[in-house]
């Protein structure tokens, strides 16, 4: 089955429940999380997810709207970007 992958990045001050909140929103929209990684970069909590939206009813733009709204609620900056921007820049 064809996958359509996006990279979700969540940046902000660390607190309880960030991953849970993002994961819940993604699962509610049938977005499958393929991998997840988190770290502290320059004092900021940084989480990166690679997610497949091929089973979701949402396109990237609708997903972006939902995640931006969630980001405002929990005080984090959340972005979803098409995987290709990272693939093109960092892989030959």
């Amino acid at each position: 089955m064809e996958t359509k992958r996006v990279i979700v990045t969540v940046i902000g001050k660390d607190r309880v429940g960030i991953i849970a909140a993002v994961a819940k929103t993604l699962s509610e929209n049938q977005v499958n999380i393929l991998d997840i990684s988190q770290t502290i970069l320059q004092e900021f909590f940084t989480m990166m997810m690679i997610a497949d939206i091929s089973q979701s009813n949402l396109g990237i733009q609708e997903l972006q709207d939902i995640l931006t709204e969630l980001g405002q609620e929990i005080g984090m900056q959340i972005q979803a970007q098409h995987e290709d921007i990272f693939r093109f820049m960092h892989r030959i």
Partner: protein
Amino acid sequence: MALNYTAEEIMQTIRMVQSENLDIRTITMGISLRDCAHEDMAVCCRKVYDKITRKAEKLVGTGEAISREYGIPIINKRIAVTPIAMVGESCIGGSFVDLAKALDKAAAATGVNFIGGFSALVHKGYTNGDRRLIEAIPEAMAVTERVCSSVNIGTTKAGINMDAVAQMGHIIKAAAELTKERDALGCAKLVVFCNVPEDNPFMAGAFHGIGEPETVINVGVSGPGVVLAAIRNHPEWDFSTLASIIKRTAFKITRMGELVGREAGKRLGVPFGIVDLSLAPTPDIGDSVADILEAMGLERVGGHGTTAALAMLNDAVKKGGAMASSHVGGLSGAFIPVSEDAGMIRAVTEGALSLDKLEAMTCVCSVGLDMFAVPGNTTAEVLSAIIADEAAIGMINKKTTAVRVIPVPGKTVGDQVEFGGLLGRAPIMALHTYDPGVFIGRGGRIPAPIHALTN
């Protein structure tokens, strides 16, 4: 399934966009208007308008969708058309200004901020269409908002058409006069070229060359801030290391252009032409080519050492970019427009950068003497002589050079003009006022150089 990217890689991409001003400077759709010629000027104008609005209907929307999905800003969506001198050549009667108005209207309808191609190629001589177009340039630049004009007056193969050089001095003066209420803004939309590229996506010099397909998508990237961030604060690096870092950075920047160009072409059903590798500055702080040169270790751009620094930067950008894209074209080099680069403006204001040094810098990078303002009382002959000097550099060095000079009526050295937006602000630069009138007035052509004989 592994997360194929490291945290550092992902964050680097995001940082480039959010704090280092990485963006796609322009997606430019080239559209052939060769099938729009007609004897009746009104019919020709209508065909031009209809074709542009039909072909570019989805350009802006598609650009915005790509920008959003990939999370990379695409600043400008633009259109380049067949040189209008050819399109309007068959019109009996009517003014070429009408064609400029049709282009302007089509640009507004499609939502692009500039449309290039009010152009003529006269490096070897004028056709009737060329003559009528050039005569219409001052008024066309005054009565339209989005139309950009260019005239190619020389090539390495053909030499320099000095009749056209002499005429362009007067045309620039006239364009300045007709737009004097707006600080001669008309001149900011007019470029005089030697060795003009036919697939350049950047304004004001973009047009759709005669060897191009029916429609095409060309992309220009902008990343001086990213290069600056990569090399800043490393005085310990030797030149090999510096060149290597610039190459790697240019590769990453150019890949964004390649990605966006391919995707835009696919979605619009238009072939993807080229990525232009130019480092294009904006007036934003930190998005300056001059700042890169200073970060390489110069106290001020314009001082001795500037030409060497720029030569190295320009070459490293090309080497990195060339591998990142399947097709490279356009101007492809570092831009050094004065008014559009905060570091260049500062250097001119402080007296560090003179017009003579700027001319020397144009020998080693694209594109030429760009977006600089001179006193309003500069004579047409001096403007022509500036064009002739710059064209000679291009002709002899087999490269593109151009002049986009703004003689601002009523202003003199020490004054400053504000164009706003991407065009920035320009301090009035001093120039030599010795009279080149006899030289410019000779007429005829400067013959092509000996190394034009390559066959």
